[in-house]
């Protein structure tokens, strides 16, 4: 359906340029895609709600999450079931489960976002330097990456926590330290192909310094991959945080965290199942949402296709 009798092949390829985060119409494209993809829309919605809950936790929580209510325990000293004053019941110490869940969202999201953010920062830095510099620098950086990668992530985190001692800060650091390797590898391979692209050579012939080339000509092309892997990374980080807390070496008591709520709730699962179900559902929903949102972003940004295009 060409209207022009002599349409050049150049003009045709021009129409199929990559959708990237730097595209000025990106938000519009994303919103349109969300309208078509209900699952993705739902997961983005869940993430947004979670973020709002985490940010405004003190305003939203009906009670103090750390306060042990004398009325929160039955005469036999058992947790109170959901209903009445305590919407989701109380735990074995008489604390409000809903309030703890709300504050737990704060911990989970904070740990997930900060740990993944740090991991992405390290990963992108290492990957870019290794890919662009090549030679001995690349070998050294990538062998370090391989070594860190060869440990099972959770065991690696447990071992590190055992050394550093459990605290929220340490949990963040440990997850970041274990997780950066994945992005480092992906970024390196992307940079390897990007630096052979014609516009990088063109920039070099114009005497543009390497740092400017990296910032202006390479980083924007990495953005899709970074966004996708960071989103997926948040899901993994939240899982690791929950696992560490479940094992009692994560976020220390009495601060609320979903993993640790599941841990302390499991012994009452016959008499007070809400202690297990409530944080469990929260965790599943959150991790699932981040994973689904990550998948959606993968399709939307199509980072692999973007780079292999030529």
């Amino acid at each position: 359906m060409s209207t022009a009798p002599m349409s050049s092949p150049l003009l045709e390829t021009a129409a199929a340029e990559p959708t990237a985060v730097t595209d000025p119409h990106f938000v519009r494209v994303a919103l349109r895609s969300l309208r078509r993809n209900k699952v993705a829309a739902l997961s983005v919605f869940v993430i947004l709600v979670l973020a709002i809950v985490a940010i405004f936790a003190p305003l939203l929580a009906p009670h103090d999450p750390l306060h042990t209510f004398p009325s929160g325990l039955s005469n036999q000293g058992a947790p109170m079931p959901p209903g009445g004053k305590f919407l989701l019941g109380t735990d074995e110490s008489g604390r409000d489960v809903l309030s703890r869940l709300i504050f737990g969202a704060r911990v989970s999201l904070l740990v997930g976002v900060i740990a993944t953010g740090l991991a992405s920062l390290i990963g992108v830095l290492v990957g870019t330097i290794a890919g662009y510099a090549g030679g001995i620098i690349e070998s050294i950086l990538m062998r370090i990456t391989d070594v860190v990668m060869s440990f099972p992530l959770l065991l690696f985190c447990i071992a590190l926590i055992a050394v550093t001692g459990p605290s929220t800060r340490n949990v963040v650091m440990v997850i970041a330290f274990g997780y950066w390797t994945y992005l480092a590898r992906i970024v390196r391979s992307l940079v390897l192909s990007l630096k052979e692209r014609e516009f990088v050579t063109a920039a070099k012939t114009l005497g543009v310094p390497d740092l400017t080339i990296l910032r202006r000509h390479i980083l924007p092309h990495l953005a899709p991959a970074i966004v996708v892997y960071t989103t997926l990374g948040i899901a993994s980080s939240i899982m690791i945080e929950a696992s560490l807390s479940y094992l009692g070496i994560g976020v220390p008591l009495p601060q609320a965290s979903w993993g640790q709520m599941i841990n302390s709730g499991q012994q009452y699962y016959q008499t007070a199942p809400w202690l297990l179900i409530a944080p469990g559902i929260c965790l599943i929903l959150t991790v699932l949402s981040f994973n689904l949102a990550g998948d959606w972003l993968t399709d939307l940004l199509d980072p692999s296709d973007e780079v292999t295009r030529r």
Partner: protein
Amino acid sequence: MPDAPLQSTGPLEGGPVIAVDRLSVTFPTTGGDGRVVRDVSLAIGRGERVGLVGESGSGKSLTARAIMRLVPRPGEVSGRVLLDGVELGVGATRDPTKWRGRSVAMITQDPLSSLNPLVRIGPQMTEMLRFHRGAGRAAARARATELLTAVGIPDPARTLNQFPAVLSGGMRQRVALAIAISCDPRLLIADEPTTALDVTIQAQVLSLLERTTAEHGTAVLLISHDLGVVSGFCERVIVMYAGRIVEAGPTEQLVSAPAHPYTRALLASVPPIQGELPERLPSIPGSPPLGGARIPGCAFAPRCPIARDVCREVEPELRAQARDGHEAACHAAGDPTWEIPELASTAEALP
């Protein structure tokens, strides 16, 4: 040939802008010596336009890359490149950002891929102005607008805010040219700048290239496989075959009286503009030796219609011919004892 005011043919006035001295590029290979560019020496004067022709794999692009010091690893470069008498890559010019773009600029074949698809035209143009000239944001933008106007882009202010994808191929090559000349380089290397364009746009871009470089006396090294393009644009032509210069000389002489059989064959295979098209265009039988393969004697001998035993044994030196500035690397050149078959279309084949 139009007589440009800055024309300087033949012996160079006031020293060459760029002098290349026995430049070789070697790639490690299992067979052969891996020298894909062999002892290329050339000099280009101020404002001079020189063409470098040869078929694919003849080493012409690699010569350009070697001048720019952009030969990809594991390639190795030997020989010297002097810019205004200063050797590049040594001492003060060790940092390539000191002279790339500022003194020597390059435009590449494909304007589609030489512009970053994710960056607007404006920042791509201003980044080197700001870096090389230390220009402020507003000043660089003003200069970019000026440059776009100079290369004939109708709405420069709007174009600066657009992504390369919106522009046509010709427009993009204009932008690439505008970027290349933005710092008034002494030498502009144009590596097949018109190959990706259709013929009408090709002519426009070439005349633009001629005009913009003549204004500042920028020397041009035009790399092409198209003798037609080169002979219309350049004052001197250098022909490369299998990594070596086989013939060099003023365009008119090289076209009217080629000394090397390879040049003759190249000229014969250009379709004539006037008169009947032959049933089949003459072509050169066989194919060039693989890059870096070591052949005793002349590399063209296996395909040469007049080759004798000496050609297969002794590699001919690049020797000066009867007329000034004309050189050829052929045993037969200038030797009346060799019979040279008449070729049908040579000089009249070209515009």
